[in-house]
């Protein structure tokens, strides 16, 4: 059933190829944008899972840090309505300097976390390589997947943090959270690094063990993080942001971005579909006599419509497959490139997206075939047979 269609397409090779190319370009654009939104959705969803448990990053102001009011603030946080547990952490930049022009995605950070902190992230951070016991080893750290890629670090690699050497005890799977680009060290190591970063005149008065830059709050189930964030912000020296606002911001940006690119992809598809209409209209005109013969030997209007629609659906489907293949290659290459730089991977082609795109291209082809199919079906057979 398909081979006569392919023979017809092969008879007008250039014309068919150009039409298929038109659809392929539109479908490639659509799949790439689709892959981008799938990836963004995955990132948002993962970080929402994390936020179901914790309200991350209640920041201590620099002044509060230096006054080492950590214990006092911890107590006040613990007494805040909705907070079940308070875990101190030290967050430091991995590198200073003029920024990292070739990277996008979250900044690379060092997280100094106590054992309880690691427990909290158990569901978020899954070990890819190494041992969960790395915390028991001295000068051992865990690294995120993007960090490992960019630094070419594996279990046993030595990395240098704030002047000291550490050995990588574990590499985590991609979690689509801020930890992917980061290094996780025990809290006391983080505190030591932070102390080194303090101005020299302050260091003697500061005990490393008292330092914390942030607190992770474990919330009571069903508590609204926004409410807790609001309460925390009344405590002097602390700043909490509603984590969902971060997501909302990310989503709003990506929504605008997506609608622009989706618009472009749709325009490409409309042009592609018009070119199918044009090609099939020409094909029907060329085959007027053939259609007359088909009618003479008993084709119903429906059979003629079906034949034209089948052909245009095949054109759409071939364009869809070509576009899908191009999109897969593009996404894989782009992801490989960003991964090698330790940046966020941007594209995620799900099987559903691929299948949906293919079916859409077939449907688009069929719909584009409707006007010429109708013309063909309404042809008067005797008139058609008089045509050469």
């Amino acid at each position, binding site marked *: 059933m398909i081979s006569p269609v392919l023979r017809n397409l092969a008879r007008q090779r250039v014309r068919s190829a150009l039409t298929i190319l038109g659809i392929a370009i539109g479908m490639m654009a659509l799949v790439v944008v689709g892959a981008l939104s799938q990836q963004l959705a995955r990132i948002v969803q993962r970080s929402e899972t994390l936020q179901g448990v914790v309200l991350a990053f209640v920041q201590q102001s620099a002044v509060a840090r230096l006054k080492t009011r950590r214990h006092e603030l911890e107590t006040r946080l613990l007494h805040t309505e909705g907070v079940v547990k308070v875990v101190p952490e030290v967050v430091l930049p991995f590198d200073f300097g003029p920024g990292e022009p070739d990277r996008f995605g979250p900044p690379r950070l060092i997280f100094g976390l106590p054992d309880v902190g690691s427990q909290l992230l158990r569901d978020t951070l899954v070990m890819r390589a190494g041992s969960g016991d790395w915390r028991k080893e001295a000068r051992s750290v865990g690294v995120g997947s993007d960090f490992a890629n960019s630094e070419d670090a594996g279990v046993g690699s030595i990395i240098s943090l704030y002047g000291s050497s550490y050995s990588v005890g574990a590499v985590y799977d991609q979690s689509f959270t801020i930890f992917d680009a980061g290094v996780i060290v025990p809290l006391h190591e983080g505190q030591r690094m932070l102390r080194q970063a303090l101005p020299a005149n302050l260091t003697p008065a500061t005990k490393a063990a008292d330092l914390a830059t942030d607190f992770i709050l474990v919330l009571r189930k069903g508590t609204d993080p926004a409410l807790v964030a609001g309460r925390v912000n009344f405590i002097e020296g602390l700043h909490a942001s509603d984590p969902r606002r971060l997501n909302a911001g990310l989503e709003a940006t990506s929504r605008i971005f997506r609608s622009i690119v989706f618009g472009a992809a749709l325009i490409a598809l409309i042009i592609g579909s018009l070119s199918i209409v044009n090609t099939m209209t020409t094909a029907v005109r060329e085959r007027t006599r*053939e259609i007359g013969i088909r*009618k*003479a*030997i008993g084709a119903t209007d429906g059979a003629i419509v079906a034949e034209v629609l089948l052909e245009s659906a095949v054109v759409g489907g071939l364009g869809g497959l070509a576009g899908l293949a191009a999109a897969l290659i593009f996404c894989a290459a782009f992801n490989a490139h960003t991964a090698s730089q330790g940046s966020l991977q941007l594209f995620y082609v799900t099987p559903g997206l691929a299948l949906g795109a293919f079916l859409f291209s077939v449907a688009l082809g069929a719909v584009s075939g409707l006007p010429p199919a109708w013309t063909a079906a309404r042809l*008067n057979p005797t008139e058609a047979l008089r045509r050469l």
Partner: protein
Amino acid sequence: MIAAKHVMKVHAPGTPLEVRALNDVSLEIGAGSFAAVIGESGSGKTTLLTLLGALDTPTAGAVTVNGTELAAKSRRELAAFRARSVGFVFQGFDLIPSLTALENVALPGRYAGRAAGEALARAQALLADVGLQHRSRHLPGQLSGGEQQRVAIARALANEPLVVLADEPTGELDSKTAEHIMTLLERFNRERGVTMVIVTHNHDHARRCSPVIVLKDGSVVA
């Protein structure tokens, strides 16, 4: 039996191109006949054939096939009638260029609602009957004129029609090949009892037919 009663056909009515192609044509062709339609160019032979084969409707008058009046049929019923009861053979070996010989012969079976396997099996048998079993996978462009016309005859017979309407089936063939085609048509008429109506300019061929309908300026003169 095929009958035409006071059939008139006006092409392009109401336009400057208006032509009265048939004028009060009445005729009867008995079941199993091997009939010829002859006449000068423009006398209305093709027009008559399209009316008998339900490809077109008369401006006035009636065409009946086996007692059923074609005018009473819907568009859909006419398509079914063309698929099951009529076989067409055209002058220009009109096979579908994108289909193989076998697929061409199987096509009317598909249009008549047969399953693909059954239609192909019947087509294979018919191709063997016209001596072309070894050409079944060839596309029309890969066949000679005579071979194409044999495939067209096999296609016309695909649904065991009541009547085969052939419009100058040998018009573009050399005399030897034309003779072969005529013999083939005669054989199918004899063996299967299919009514044949053949438009021809060849008087030798016409002499082998009965009845012979002679058209002149849109009227039957003999």
